[in-house]
């Protein structure tokens, strides 16, 4: 039986003035699959994830399908309501606000008048932090994010991505500026997402990390997909050689 892609991009383009960040992108993402999206700086990785997450609009002419149905007026709120969660490279945290406010940002638990059910949000945040192993006596869900270390902030951004029933989680350079042990936890977390049947797009500059988690590689070079194939028997060395090859010929 032919598998239906969760997300399908057809002829997606994005230009900033005269510069094309993405050209003729055709990509299918399947349920329960981890795709490592790799490429040099400026290859268009972050722009592609921003288009899928709805924070960037593609140029006219392209199509986005979700569960086989074309979606119109795609934006961040719609993407999140379809179960697409993103851990942005910038972490997208409001640093002066509390941890729980950040976790529920854009999806606050409210009563019918729009007032936030603060107690419930705090309890859910506590549970969530315990679930992903971020236990600390230093902060509580009420603590401001600007009191946290870099790794802890990343923990908040990641936990936000799994709080709601997500179907596709995109992580843009999630291990940047992390200690080795923390990066290892993130890699385990990504594998755990796959076990839960979720799709994952993983972006990393670290080819070893990208190789270790991937079912499939998508290599971007100056806005174009130059390779899209399964990991299969490819060793890390083969993968790195392939990356070098594309870099040399670009």
């Amino acid at each position, binding site marked *: 039986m032919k598998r239906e892609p969760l997300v399908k991009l057809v002829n997606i383009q994005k230009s900033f003035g005269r510069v094309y960040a993405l050209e003729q992108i055709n990509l299918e993402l399947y349920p329960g699959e981890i795709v490592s999206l790799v490429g040099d700086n400026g290859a268009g990785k972050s722009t592609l994830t921003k288009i899928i997450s*709805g924070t960037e609009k593609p140029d006219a002419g392209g199509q986005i399908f979700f569960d086989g149905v074309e979606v119109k007026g795609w934006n961040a709120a*719609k993407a999140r309501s379809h179960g697409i969660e*993103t851990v942005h490279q910038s972490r*997208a945290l409001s640093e002066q606000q509390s941890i729980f*406010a950040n976790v529920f*940002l*854009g999806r*606050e638990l409210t009563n019918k008048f729009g007032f936030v059910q603060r107690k419930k949000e705090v309890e859910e945040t506590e549970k969530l932090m315990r679930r992903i192993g971020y236990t600390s006596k230093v902060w509580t869900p009420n603590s*401001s994010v600007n009191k946290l270390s870099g790794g802890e902030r990343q923990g908040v951004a990641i936990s936000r991505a799994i709080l709601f029933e997500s179907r596709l989680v995109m992580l843009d350079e999630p291990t940047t500026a992390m200690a080795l042990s923390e990066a290892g936890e993130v890699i385990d977390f990504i594998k755990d997402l796959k076990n839960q049947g979720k799709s994952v797009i993983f972006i990393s500059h670290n080819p070893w990390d990208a190789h270790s988690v991937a079912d499939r590689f998508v290599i971007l070079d100056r806005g174009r997909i130059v390779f899209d194939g399964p990991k299969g028997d490819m060793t890390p060395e083969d993968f790195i050689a392939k990356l070098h090859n594309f870099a040399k010929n670009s």
Partner: protein
Amino acid sequence: MSTEAREQTVKSSFYLQERLRPVVGAAIFFAIMLVTFIGFAPDVFLTGGIYTAIFLSLPLFTIVGLSLVFVTVAGEIDLSFPSTIALSGFMFSWTLEQTSLNFYAGLLAALVTGVLCGLINGFLVTKLGLSSLITTLGMNFALIGLTNVINQGEVRMFTELNETFLRNLFVGKIGSIPSQMFWMAGIALLLGAIFHRHRFGIHCHVAGDNPEAGRAMGVDIERTKTLCFVLVGICSSITAVISILLNSTYFSTMGEGYLLPVLAAVFVGGTPVTGGRGTIGGLVIGAATVVFIQTGVVAAGLDGYWTSLGFGLVIVLSLLGHRWFSGRLTR
């Protein structure tokens, strides 16, 4: 910093009270000012008369100031509210005249005017990407110009409204306290709840702190900021209506004299210009401080020229106070 050291810091630094620091700072500053005034003229400041005078005008500055907190926290500024007060006041007065003093029609006209002014500001700032500082400064000139053109310098009297139920409801007295103080308290409680506990209030904070984070999480930052400008318009029109009822008179310069005191109230109250943080309680105390200086300087026997000097000192000293107070508690 080690985990143990951070835990120690948390335990010793009122960590959970962080949000209250500006309010406490503003309250301490107000108390110092009050004691200073009492020291200078105890016979004036230990009697009730001065406070009745303060209660008459405090709501006017507070109501519009409350909305300024929202827009400032959202990372913008609105300098057009004095003209919005004048224009919506004109619409209130004009409608009263045209409808044989139909108060509700006048109130509706004032509110619609305020909302429209806010929507225009919001459109210019969020859709056209103009600087709110310059845009609302320009709007302040444009709106007062428009008001003067259509009002033609006329002073409109509404003495017929004196002793009516509606006037008493808005600006009468309950005991010895002016009614508008209760309206002010109600509006402050409602806006305080929205500011701290409502989805809109949270989005205002995020809009000023990290709008990109908000957008990435699906928050409509442009809509949030536009609603902040609309709120300023609504509060300006309420201020205009209360002021007209209080004085039984409309004059097109009625918005003058609000700009600097209200902005001072926002900053003295502990809301920084940088966005993302702010306090409703602090604004009420900041407005009380500002109105107290306006009234107190004259009541203390000094001439009105001292008022500006008082404002200047209060703003600078309160900013230093906020910095010292917050810094001390975090070290």
